[in-house]
């Protein structure tokens, strides 16, 4: 005999019913708020400095939370039309105000910012601002200089600034040698494929972020394909001059010793020989960065 049984039973039933009601209402609240609500709160926050003061010493924890939100929100929605690109920079700005040494936010965040849509926000100038802030707060971290140079070269086509960045970064103790190499190439204004490939290879090696590694791979594949196709086009021309007509398939070129086998693209699929002598890739979707003049 422990208390009034009727009361216990009624309370238990009420509890279940009311809890179910709370779950239901909460889901309705979520639906009414919209997916971007929490993200939009960023826009309503006062400056990062004020938030830092208000966070009472827990600013690095708060920074982690904001950064996690950023990764979840943007990582999950990359490429979708509903992406709120305008929220990315304010989010990164506040995060790095809260924790100026959250290097990942500068690194991955700036790459996200500068890449053209839909892979990124398409705001390379904001990326530069973010990276410069990161360098101010973390002057001994040379990789920020690397990313800065990268953004200047790849997305802003500003060789001078890129050279400066690589140069300054190469002087930081611990910087890897390719920084000097990149500085030199920028000085020569070498805007060729091998420079780009060198850069993307460096990106691939430097970063730990798998998403960025994947992007670098895709870039390298596209650049390789561009090189391949240019070379293949030359051999097709050579054949035409020799044979007097365009080859009908790769076997023609193999027969004449111009190729050793069917040429394969970095993904392993065969290149397509078009009737007019141009070369195309089997699956253009696998080479998102492949287009004339794009790096």
């Amino acid at each position, binding site marked *: 005999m422990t208390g009034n049984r009727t*009361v216990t039973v009624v309370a238990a039933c009420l509890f279940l019913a009311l809890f179910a009601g709370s779950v239901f209402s909460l889901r309705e609240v979520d639906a009414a708020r919209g997916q971007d609500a929490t993200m939009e709160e960023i826009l*309503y926050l006062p400056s990062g400095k004020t938030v830092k003061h208000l966070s009472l010493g827990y600013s690095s924890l708060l920074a982690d939370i904001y950064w996690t*939100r950023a990764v979840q929100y943007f990582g999950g929605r990359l490429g979708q039309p509903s992406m709120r690109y305008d929220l990315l920079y304010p989010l990164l700005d506040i995060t790095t105000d809260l924790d100026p040494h959250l290097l990942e936010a500068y690194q991955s965040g700036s790459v996200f910012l500068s890449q053209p849509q839909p892979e990124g926000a398409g705001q390379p100038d904001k990326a530069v601002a973010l990276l410069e802030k990161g360098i101010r707060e973390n002057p001994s971290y040379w990789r920020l200089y690397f990313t800065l140079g990268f953004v200047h070269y790849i997305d802003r086509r500003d060789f001078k600034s890129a050279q400066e960045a690589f140069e300054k970064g190469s002087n930081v103790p611990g910087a890897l040698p390719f920084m000097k190499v990149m500085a030199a190439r920028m000085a020569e204004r070498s805007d060729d494929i091998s420079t780009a490939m060198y850069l993307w290879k460096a990106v691939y090696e430097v970063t730990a972020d798998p998403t960025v590694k994947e992007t670098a791979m895709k870039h390298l594949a596209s650049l390789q394909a561009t090189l391949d196709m240019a070379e293949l086009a030359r051999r097709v021309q050579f054949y035409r001059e020799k044979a007097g007509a365009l080859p009908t398939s790769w076997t023609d070129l193999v027969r004449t010793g111009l190729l050793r086998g069917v040429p394969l693209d970095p993904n392993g699929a065969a290149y397509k020989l078009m009737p007019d002598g141009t070369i195309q890739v089997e699956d253009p979707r696998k080479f998102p960065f492949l287009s004339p003049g794009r790096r």
Partner: protein
Amino acid sequence: MTSRLAAIALNTFREAVRDRVLYNLILFVLLLVASAPLFSQISIGMERMILVNVALSSISLFGVIIAIFIGIGLVSKEIEKKTLYTILSRPVRRWEFIVGKYLGLMVTLVVNALLMTAGFYLALLITAHGLKKTDALLLVAVYFTILQFLMVTAITLLFSSFSTPIFSAIFAFALFVIGTFAEDLRTFATMSHGATKWVVSAVAYIVPNFASLNVIAQVGYGQPVGGRMIVLNTLYALFYSAAVAAAAVMVFERRNLK
């Protein structure tokens, strides 16, 4: 039944009003609100915004602390001091005691919040030399804060019905902090799979969710809150608090007191 509930609720309110510690806390908050205009000197052009943010945040945070502080005494103190014995020897049902105490505490907190809001409006009047139309929006923020009190108090009541004052306070405050980030928990749940998803989802709904009730920044910018949001949030807070109170009744009904 109602006369007993009313008697217990009113007595709880009377107890809170005569509690000297409570006075000090409220005084502290009023001081904070009064000094908010000083904060705004730091940031030119943003005086109003800063004032609103600091004042409303103080009301929210300290209101919760007061809620927890009085709330833990609701049942724990009565058991420890044995004042409960002479109550239970009367025709008072155990559940009436719990519910009566909860109602009394809610009345206390609402009065508390209104007092602090009045002080806040006074500060606003002085700093901004007049009130704008959008200042009515601020009342929505206060209302949502009161909804948060409803939920936190219910949680404190639940812990108070089986735990000591210290632990009740710790758990209740911890849940308050978790509740502020509960939305991130639910986002995490939607992105995970299998058993983790279920466990995290369950936890995310069991803890209170304060994300949609934190509109301080929003109203500071003069952004209105939709009527539908107000209704839905009210429903959520009421359902949640009532559910937790029902759980408290269940626990207390079966408990052997010291």
